[in-house]
């Protein structure tokens, strides 16, 4: 419950940053926050109590948390990082062409 609240709050902060900012880099940071919120929610919604998802050979029967969301999140983190890097590169190139990263002065983004 408290995690969901936290997730929704983070998600909204990120969305606000995307919708209301005037700066492209701030927008990318907002996207990162939204992604971070989703990953946070994925990890924290643990269903059952348990330990780290690494088998201890001395006590192989110890319960562990569900490892699949962790694997999925790991994949998604890497994907989101590479997308962000590509987006930042494009912003740098655009800055070279247009000499600005302010959204309002970029007419092409408004069409």
């Amino acid at each position, binding site marked *: 419950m408290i995690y969901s609240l936290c997730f929704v709050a983070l998600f*909204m902060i990120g969305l606000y940053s995307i919708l*209301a900012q005037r700066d492209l880099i701030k927008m990318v940071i907002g996207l990162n926050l939204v992604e971070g919120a989703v990953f946070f929610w994925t990890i924290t919604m643990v269903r059952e109590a348990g330990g780290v998802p690494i088998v201890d050979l001395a006590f192989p029967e110890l319960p*562990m948390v*569900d490892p699949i969301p962790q694997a999925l999140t790991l994949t998604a983190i890497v*994907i989101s990082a590479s997308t962000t890097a590509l987006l930042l590169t494009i912003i740098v190139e655009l800055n070279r062409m247009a000499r600005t990263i302010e959204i309002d002065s970029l007419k092409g983004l408004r069409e």
Partner: protein
Amino acid sequence: MKVFLTAIILAFTGGALFVNLGSIPDSFLLSHTASRFYREAVVTETGALNTVSAILYDFRAFDSLGESTVIFATVSGIVLLLSRKTLPVSSAGLSLIVKRTFGILTPFVFLLSVYIILHGHLSPGGGFQGGVLLAVITIIFCIIYGSSFDLSRYPPQRKTLIETTGALLFLGVGIIGIALTGSFLGNPSAWRGVPGTLPSAGSIVPINLGVGLKVGAGLAIIFYSMIQKTLKRQ
């Protein structure tokens, strides 16, 4: 007006999200799920101790192939976008002490990343995390010594070579899997050792190595092409 609209959108979305996601009961979970099987059979079926690694590189290895391909695509895209005549930057601002300190530190970072890559099936970590640490070495070089040092030590061609080698290693392990087990990316039981030791877990170790090389070299290329100064503008 715009602020008002944004506030309404945010309030509506947030409310809807919270109402719907507030709590998910788990009474209707399927009784025998993949997750339960993974937790019970990870050691006997794959030889790995780290269940997350086992999922990433054995049970759902195809996901990892797709994921490292995403990094490969990003690297290609960024190199394509930033491919202009460039000038390596050399840094002069940092003092000898800083340079020496990081010179001593770098081998340890390298050692740590190799450890993380090779112990992916035993302890937290794996190809991705270790690969990123490898890329961090490039970042250290670029920041401390300037990218001309990095260029002379590890030219982009060599990085491309390493990256492609990693990618082909991943594919190659998959194809060996067809030959030995009959299915792509299969984990041949002949390669498994005693669980808990370094050469256990079959194909997970070479896949980790391949992913590590690919991710490390790829991210190094990304960072390197980002900090270069262009020779001539437009």
